[in-house]
């Protein structure tokens, strides 16, 4: 892998000279928050550079003798003498009353370490008391939960499968527990969440809508061992971190459901069982030569079992049924970061991600006399899954003070098992055993190779340009597809201190998830682009305007338009669920448009902070084979006002948090009429798809934290209440015809979630 990376590097920089003297480092404030856009200049010369969005800087052509001037309009200037070829952390002091909000990063980017700091997300109200990264993201403008109560993410009118969620750089293919109501991550196993809601650097690719990067804790302000034990109605979890600042780290997080353990083993094996677990383990070390090694592992599993026994007239078991559904993820990655020479840093990474799901039905007939044979048993198991093996070499090259070039090569070998069915009927008297396997007995391989390069060009004091390209080759089904992705972005620092950002991106997506009923359903199938199924393609234009308001507030306004092509929709659910049939026959492709305006006002200072956002958006779909005209996207929510507020004071006895969401209702499709078809059978009339919008969505969630120190341990009781006002936001709208094939006696039922309590008990050590 290193050789491949090296060859790629050589090809890309063959004509460029390297080896100039430089100094580098990170500019932070007194709280160690990154300071972006600091001008770093050799005094008395025209040799200068700027710190990037994460406060990092590299000043090349540095003679090593001249002092450096660090200047920024909101901070006290510094004059320092730095060593050549060294890396230094530079502390700057903000002016009193200066608003330290970070105006950097590309339009549509959000994270909770550099951009949206001091948000104390642990205080956010969580569904059932389960801290959940997805529910944090759902409170951001432009990111919707989809179905009520679920932990899914729909970004700016895009589909759920258009989001690439990565844990320490490794893609995860199902981040849901419990059929989509909780995410698979222990909240402490994530130190920072960053989201690209549309535009993304050319390093990111493979999905059309959003990139969600979850990074575990890898460093700390202080060395030592710390951790916490957590208990909720669903899970018991533990987190342990042993971090030696800037040197090495070891973290482990694990959760498991516990209620099932209270149930007798016999009941779990024969009647009912449900359990989940997840485990995240991360180890890293900085070597003597400053190279870094990071290892990450994650495993999750959900298992649900229902058993039923039918009895004959004598009360003996005549038939025993069992239905088992389980799904699991395994993610592991190894990353090696090194400096090839003074100007080039390279990060090599290998990862493996596997998602597997199965549904097993088993029937045993104990009353049949079989002699020496076992019980006559029929068993059917449907299995599907995806494996992703990735190799990456990602590099940054300091060409000059004005040009920072990122480039690399990424390979992803994806193996798909779209559907395998194992059927057996054994030990039936006078009948030969049957063992049949249909569908995909083996995984089908595809290959995706991407080359990318991006120049972050500081054009002037006021202008920074990101000029990127990403070229993909996708091999599958005896066909090679090429995808070309411009990634362009401009940042303009205005005279009034505000920032204007504009950008255009194209994203190609060669993998899709077929929705077999509901988003988050573990049985949803991952499939590749084929000769027949075109890859998804998305073009997005976005403009953003950001400004600081006074000392503690900031505001951003984003407007975007995106066009989506080759979206997939299952047109025949029954056939798509049948591994014996070609899934491609059940899929239709269409187009979509989405546009919107998002306003976000946030407060990042003080004990009481949070944000308020409003988004106006529109998202439509067009599937010619489904309906002749455009129709609204299922999760289209034109108006959405969201408020997250929390009070955090680690010395106070009580902290609290609150979420408020007010917006357009969810769309459902209801029949409006009935008529006779060509064969005189009654059919239902739908005037369009998604024709019914439920009444205005309103939701207030609250959380209350009791902080207490007992026996030398910090303890927290966290109390939550979801939908405190009992708003009837539909989880589902069901049309019930009372079993009447003539479709009479229609009844429309609404299910909703209200007053759902949650609690968590946490001990920190």
């Amino acid at each position, binding site marked *: 892998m290193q050789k491949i990376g090296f060859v790629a590097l050589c090809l890309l920089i063959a004509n460029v000279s390297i080896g100039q003297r430089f100094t580098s480092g990170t500019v932070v404030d007194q709280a160690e928050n990154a300071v972006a856009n600091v001008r770093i200049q050799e005094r008395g010369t025209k040799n200068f550079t700027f710190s990037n969005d994460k406060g990092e800087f590299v000043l090349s052509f540095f003679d090593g003798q001249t002092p450096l001037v660090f200047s920024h309009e909101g901070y006290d200037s510094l004059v320092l003498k730095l060593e050549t070829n060294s890396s230094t952390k530079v502390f700057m002091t903000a002016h009193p009353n200066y608003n330290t909000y970070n105006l950097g990063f590309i339009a549509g980017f959000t994270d909770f370490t550099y951009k949206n700091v001091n948000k104390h997300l642990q205080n956010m109200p969580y569904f059932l008391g389960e801290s959940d990264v997805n529910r944090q993201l759902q409170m951001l403008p432009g990111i919707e939960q989809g179905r009520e109560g679920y932990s899914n993410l729909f970004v700016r009118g895009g589909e759920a499968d258009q989001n690439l969620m990565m844990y320490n750089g490794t893609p995860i293919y199902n981040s849901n527990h419990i059929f989509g109501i909780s995410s698979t991550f222990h909240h402490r196993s994530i130190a920072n969440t960053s989201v690209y809601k549309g535009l993304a650097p050319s390093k990111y690719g493979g999905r059309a809508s959003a990139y969600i990067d979850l990074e575990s804790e890898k460093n700390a302000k202080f060395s030592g061992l710390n951790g916490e034990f957590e208990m909720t109605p669903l899970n018991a979890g533990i987190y342990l971190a042993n971090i030696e600042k800037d040197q090495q780290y070891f973290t482990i997080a694990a959760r498991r459901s516990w209620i099932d353990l209270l149930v007798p083993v016999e009941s779990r094996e024969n009647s009912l069982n449900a359990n989940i677990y997840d485990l995240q383990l991360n180890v890293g070390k900085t070597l003597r030569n400053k190279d870094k090694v990071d290892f990450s592992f994650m495993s999750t599993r959900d298992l649900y079992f229902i058993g039923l026994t039918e009895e004959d007239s004598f009360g003996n078991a005549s038939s025993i049924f069992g239905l088992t559904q389980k799904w699991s993820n395994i993610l592991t990655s190894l990353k090696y970061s090194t400096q090839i020479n003074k100007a080039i840093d390279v990060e090599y990474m290998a990862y493996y991600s596997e998602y597997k799901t199965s549904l097993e039905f088993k029937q045993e007939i104990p009353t049949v006399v079989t002699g020496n044979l076992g019980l006559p048993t029929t068993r059917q198991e449907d299995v599907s899954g995806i494996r992703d093996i990735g190799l990456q070499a990602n590099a940054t090259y300091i060409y000059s003070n004005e040009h920072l070039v990122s480039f690399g090569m990424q390979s992803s070998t994806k193996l798909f098992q779209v559907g395998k069915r194992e059927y057996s009927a054994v030990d039936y008297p006078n009948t030969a055993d049957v063992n049949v396997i249909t569908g995909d007995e083996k995984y089908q391989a595809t290959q995706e190779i991407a080359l990318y390069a991006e120049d972050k060009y500081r054009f002037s004091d006021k202008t920074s340009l990101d000029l990127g390209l990403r070229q993909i080759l996708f091999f599958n089904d005896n066909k090679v597809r090429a995808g070309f992705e411009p990634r362009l972005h401009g940042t303009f620092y205005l005279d009034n201190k505000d920032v204007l950002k504009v950008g255009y991106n194209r994203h190609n997506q060669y993998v899709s998830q077929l929705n077999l009923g509901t988003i988050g359903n573990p049985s949803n199938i991952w499939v590749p682009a084929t000769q027949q199924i075109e890859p998804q393609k998305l073009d997005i234009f976005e403009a953003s305007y950001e400004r600081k308001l006074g000392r503690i507030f900031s505001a951003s306004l984003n407007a975007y338009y995106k066009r989506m092509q080759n979206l997939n929709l299952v047109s025949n659910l029954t056939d798509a669920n049948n591994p014996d049939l070609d899934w491609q026959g059940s899929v239709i492709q269409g187009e979509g448009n989405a546009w919107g305006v998002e306003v976000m006002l946030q407060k990042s200072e003080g004990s009481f902070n949070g944000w308020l956002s409003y988004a106006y958006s529109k998202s439509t779909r067009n599937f010619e084979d489904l309906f002749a005209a455009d129709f609204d996207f299922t999760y289209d929510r034109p108006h959405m006002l969201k408020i997250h507020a929390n009070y955090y004071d680690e010395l106070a006895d009580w902290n609290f948090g609150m979420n408020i969401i007010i917006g357009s209702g969810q769309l459902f499709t209801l029949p409006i009429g*009935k008529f006779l078809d060509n064969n005189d059978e009654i059919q239902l009339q739908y005037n369009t798809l998604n024709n019914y919008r439920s009444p205005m969505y309103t939701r207030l969630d609250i959380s209350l934290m009791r902080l207490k120190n007992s026996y030398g341990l910090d303890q927290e009781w966290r109390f939550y209440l979801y939908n405190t006002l009992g708003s009837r936001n539909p989880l589902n709208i069901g049309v019930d015809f009372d079993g009447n094939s003539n479709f009479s006696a229609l009844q429309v039922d609404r299910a909703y979630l209200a007053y759902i309590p949650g609690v968590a008990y946490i001990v920190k050590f």
Partner: protein
Amino acid sequence: MKRLRFFVGLSFVLSLSACLNDTIRPDILQDYTPKMVINAVLTADSTVSIRLTQSLPVVDSTYPTLVQNATVTYESATGADGSFTYDPISQTYITNKVFVPGEIFRLRGEHPTLPTVVSEVRMPDKVESQASLTLDGGVDTSGLSGDLLTLTVNDPGGQKNYYRLRVLYNNGVRFIPFSYPRADPSFADYNSLVLEDNSVLFTDELFEGQQKTILSVAVNSLTAGISGDKYMIEFASVSSDYYDYFISLDRAIDAKEVTFQGGFNNAVVIHSNIDNGLGILATESRSNFILR
């Protein structure tokens, strides 16, 4: 232990409070205007009939009824116009007019209480085709020798064409359709459909602009010993509306089998080419080949 009991108790409360239900009457179900429903397959060079019914609100518990007092007229692009009359025996609207391949005409239906409906359609052109029979030229599904029926179609290029094929055998009294397998590689799951009358509806997507030969082998046990007019191949060029209607209708029928989940899984918009109404005015130009 005290805390554990607390969590167990809370879990029980959660299971009770998690999901509530009520019944609603959405506005869109209340304000419904019934529409005229046209159902007809018009064959070129043949007399035609049209069945008219009316749709009902989905909340109505009655059965959709026939529309008997409508005024149904047609206007051909050739200048000919006329009307359909209601035939109480067949409960359809009939006319003596014979439409020819390539003819475009507009059908109009008016009724005192229902919105006026209009549909403009074209009779598809006949596609050049030939059929032949080779006695005992193939092997049937039972492994026995069977008669080989060959249909050759010259598919016009530069346009998407839709076809219907049905193979029938004479049982001595009348022609009976074979249960036709979609064995031909051009009949993929996504571009073909078997109709209730055992026709195969398909597109030319996989042989666009080419000469296409479709082979079928008669089932020996059904046809052995029969002489004379032994087989009939019905081959028709059909309108795109014809194809779209039956494809969507098939999906709608499948969707009824699925438990309602509120998404599109149950919601199939059945294709219609009736402006301001529902149903289908399908057209076809058919060739019948009698093989002996």
